[in-house]
């Protein structure tokens, strides 16, 4: 009992430390611009050389002296670029998540439940591609997207996203775990593969679809490399790139913008957490 209590307490402390960056972003978003300036004004300054003040440091503030929503007001009302880029992000991420989930569930069904020649080799190709960082196919991908006339268009991010291999890999794991007897029974009743897929397999892998949705959302909401290369037009870029810029130029509203940026992800995760965890556990992680 004592050991259990001690261990729990220790883990609570570690977890609390892990949450500090998130909590700080939130509390700092409620500070006035002035308080932020007063505390963090020294960031990025080389005090040693500049002020001759060797002992000058920023002042880490955990809680605001004065609660205010003014940063949020600034971001949402006086900063049209923010909302624009928020919708840019959403406009790219939603089609990717929906598209990859749909396309991948079909492919995963073929890899997990159908027998055909070269299946395992083809799957290995998918798997290997999934492991490659974005830069590996950068040049030809760029040429391809240029040839398709998609450069500087959202589709240059969305289309490759839809056909990503991660969804195929993950949903296949889930489908491998559906007992053969389920699909056999449907087959005996005269169902074709289309029916078996839609009526038997898909409903059973819903936890997998939920986990995949969360992971894809998180990953693409967070993308940096693709828009950096394919979207030169700043007004088409997603929030991830814009936020880095805002943090450099207007630290105050940066915090509010950061909170607004992470909130959809956190809410989605908290909402889907039980499916997410259950989904990953159901998959049993079998190759």
């Amino acid at each position, binding site marked *: 009992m004592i050991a259990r209590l001690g261990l729990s307490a220790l883990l609570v402390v570690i977890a609390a430390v*892990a949450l500090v960056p998130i909590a700080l972003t939130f509390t700092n978003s409620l500070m006035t611009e002035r308080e932020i300036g007063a505390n963090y004004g020294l960031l990025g300054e080389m005090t040693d050389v500049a002020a001759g003040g060797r002992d000058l440091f920023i002042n*880490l503030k955990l809680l605001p002296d004065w609660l205010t929503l003014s940063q949020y007001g600034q971001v949402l009302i006086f900063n049209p670029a923010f909302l624009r880029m928020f919708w840019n992000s959403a406009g790219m991420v939603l089609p990717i998540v929906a598209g990859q989930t749909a396309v991948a569930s079909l492919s995963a069904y073929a890899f997990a439940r159908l027998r055909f020649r070269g299946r395992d080799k083809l799957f290995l190709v998918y798997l290997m*591609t999934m492991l490659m960082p974005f830069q590996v*196919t950068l040049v030809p991908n760029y040429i391809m997207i240029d040839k398709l006339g998609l450069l500087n268009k959202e589709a240059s991010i969305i289309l490759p996203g839809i056909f990503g291999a991660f969804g195929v890999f993950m949903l296949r794991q889930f489908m491998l775990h559906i007992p053969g007897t389920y699909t056999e029974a449907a087959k005996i009743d005269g169902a074709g593969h289309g029916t078996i897929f839609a009526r038997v397999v898909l409903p059973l892998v819903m936890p997998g679809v939920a986990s995949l949705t969360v992971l894809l959302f998180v990953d693409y909401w967070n993308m940096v490399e693709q828009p950096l290369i394919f979207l030169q037009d700043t007004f088409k870029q997603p929030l991830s790139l814009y936020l880095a810029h805002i*943090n450099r130029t207007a630290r105050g509203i940066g915090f509010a913008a950061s909170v607004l940026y992470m909130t959809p*992800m956190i809410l989605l995760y908290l909402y889907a957490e039980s499916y997410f965890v259950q989904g990953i556990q159901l998959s049993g*992680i079998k190759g």
Partner: protein
Amino acid sequence: MSRRLRGLWRGGDGAAALLFLAPGAAGFALFYLFPFAMGLWYSLTDRTIGGRFVGLANYEALLASGSFRKAAANTLLFTGVSVPILISLSLGLALLLSRPLFLRRWLQTAFVLPLVVPVASVVAIWQIFLDWNGSLNAWLHGLGYGRIDWLQSDWAMPTLVAMYVWKNVGYDMILFLAGLLSIPQSYYETARIEGAGRLRQLTHITLVYLTPTTVFVILISIINSFKVFRETYLLTGDYPYDRIYMLQHYMNNMFFSLDIQKLTSAAALMVGCIVILAGSLLATEKRFRSWME
């Protein structure tokens, strides 16, 4: 119809497989497979458009380049160090959380949350901690030590490792928890009856039966180790401190300076390494499975 196609047709579900695979495979070929093959070809020619075959000349030039060697060494070091650290920490957490603890669900949520927070959202906080005038240095000063330029010194690599672990430990932990759940309790009971201690149960049952999970977690962790580029880029831009200048920086910069030959050969070398690594991991897993049966 060719014999091969007919064979595919008769091989059970060939026709259905074609239908199910077609949409995904078409896009996959267009955006991944074909570009990948083109990249390999570019790496063997002297120009991207209308190039001439030059054999391995690009590779020689690449290997002679100091910045490539630096980037490759850094990437290798980062992945080689951070993945084992991440995996042991997340396995440790999973082992702790698989026991009856207070607030278990809350703890689990807390450890996973960093994964879902976008990098750009917490970059400002990392700056507050890591800046020359930042909080970590203020605390060091309070303890009587000198300042450390966290991202512009040899501390840059450990700093990145810490951020990587912070972000990914929860996800790996959940994967391990799932793996732990799939080990039948009866194995442990038998072991206890035969007088096996805790350590022996851990090494002879838990770690052994976690092998497939571990292979999976290693693969996912390697993918995620490449994504540290996001943190580095948002914190330090195109040219970070030498020690954290990764292959992704190198390839991005080669792209912007239009040095396509170096980029594609660097990519090909990287692919070679990943294929060898993943291949040996999957072979290990396969051996484990055949041994299980």
